[in-house]
């Protein structure tokens, strides 16, 4: 059901660089799973409100008070390329 072009399109949206072999495998596996899931399209759900939150809660607000953040060095400690007190990345380059 999912063809090669659709798989490549979704992989591009998801920022996943799939190999040729993975594109084929993914197309087959996703189609198999979607075939099963398709069953819910048979249900008549006209007028049913979609669930956005499962427990009844009211909006939660708090005062917007400044407080200290995590220390910069603690946050940068896990970065692959700490650079000039920030996160280094390759050039955005051509889109």
């Amino acid at each position, binding site marked *: 059901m999912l063809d090669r072009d659709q798989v490549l399109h979704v992989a591009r*949206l998801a920022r*996943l660089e799939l190999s040729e072999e993975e594109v084929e495998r*993914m197309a087959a596996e996703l189609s198999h799973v979607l075939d099963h*899931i398709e069953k819910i399209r048979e249900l008549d759900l006209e007028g049913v409100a979609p669930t956005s939150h499962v427990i009844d809660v009211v909006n939660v607000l708090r005062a917007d008070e400044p407080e200290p953040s995590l220390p910069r060095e603690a946050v940068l400690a896990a*970065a692959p390329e700490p650079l000039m007190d920030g996160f280094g990345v390759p050039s955005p380059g051509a889109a």
Partner: protein
Amino acid sequence: MNELIALSAAEAAERVRAGEIDPGELFDAYRQRAAADDLNAFTWVADEAPRDHDYAHTPLGGVPVAVKDLFCTEGVPSQSGSKILEGYRPPYSATVVRNLAEAGAPLLGKTNQDEFAMGSSNENSAFGPVLNPWDRRRVPGGSSGGSAAAVAAGLAPWAIGTDTGGSIRQPAALCGVVGLKPTYGACSRYGMIAFASSLDQAGPFTRNVTDAALLFRHMVGQDRRDSTSLEFPEPIELPRGEDLKGVRLGIPEELVGADAGVDPGVRASFDETLRLAEELGATLEPCQLPHASHALSAYYLIAPAEASANLARFDGVRYGLREDGASDLTTMYSRTREVGFGPEVQRRIMLGTYALSSGYYDAYYGKAQKVRTKIAEDFRGAFERFDFVITPTSPWTAFELGSKTHDPLAMYLNDFCTVPMSLAGIPAISIPSGLSEGLPVGFQLAGPAFSEPRLLAAAYALEQAIGFDGSPARA
């Protein structure tokens, strides 16, 4: 076996509080067992407990807790079973972990899991599968397989895990321990590495129901860092009820009926549990959850959709793996994610991205969210007539390593009985009901939102009547 290990967690806490046990000795007894783990249940084990606590004066008495890898623990590897987070040491701890530490349960170690909690067998971990202590050729279930196996094998007195569609209840059943998935919002999700945010909930793994109540009591609470968390509306007492007089149990035909594919050995153990429930005074009747048979389909759209958004953060910029050598930013993202994520995680990201993509959103994600509404309504209807619904936790017992890895859909069926409760946000507990061909079987009790105290009381009464012996797995 060391006599300290034979004590339940609640007993050990009481003995420490009474001054009869040294909390340091208790910690060391478990630390040694966890360090000698040959089930691959642990991904990291602590050297010692923090000494700045007077454990004899804490409610949890210094009884150490094993924590699923996906909980952030300050300065300690928190990898969510993924290569993309290998070696990551967060600068802060999850609220639930902090709550437990403050109540006197120090961190014993981090437990293995399916990558980003996506799996039902623990075979999707980047750090290798966990073995089931009842039979090492078999899986412990998943995704919290390490926590379940560690408690079953007595490598930890108790543990915490997370449940998105069954990831506490199913491994608890397959390993012969108690596992509670709380009401959505009972425990803060702050510091849990997110899988599907509208479903993820932390909960306890324990040897018995009393331990589960005690640990859960100290996990809950509203947290300003998670606006979906709620104050638990009543105190969580340790269960005492010895009978089920007046308790009405509904048996959902859609999950338990002949079409549900429940293994005969599981079915026999479940029927025996129903018989005991009746003996204890419960009334049993079939009930209907008309949309429950569509729960799995809705779940496998909603959870991957949310995962595809949550896992966008793993991009090789701020933490974790980066695949070097890319000449531009987008290529760096795509290569890092391709190398860092395992096959199941990639599959779910693809599925979720597809379900959310332009032109498909209404047909898939939108429709699934409507099914979710119907499932929640089904449960509300059932709870007008029944106090709880009761089902087997998993359709089958622990299966052999590798036996389901070739077919993603077959693996997803593990969640058949557990996913409906997740979609409805309601609490559910898995309790051992006995053995089938030497392997543990579990059953599941589920109740309305915030019914945990009553749920634990009913579970306790059944546990006493069943008298399951988990000690062979701790030998």
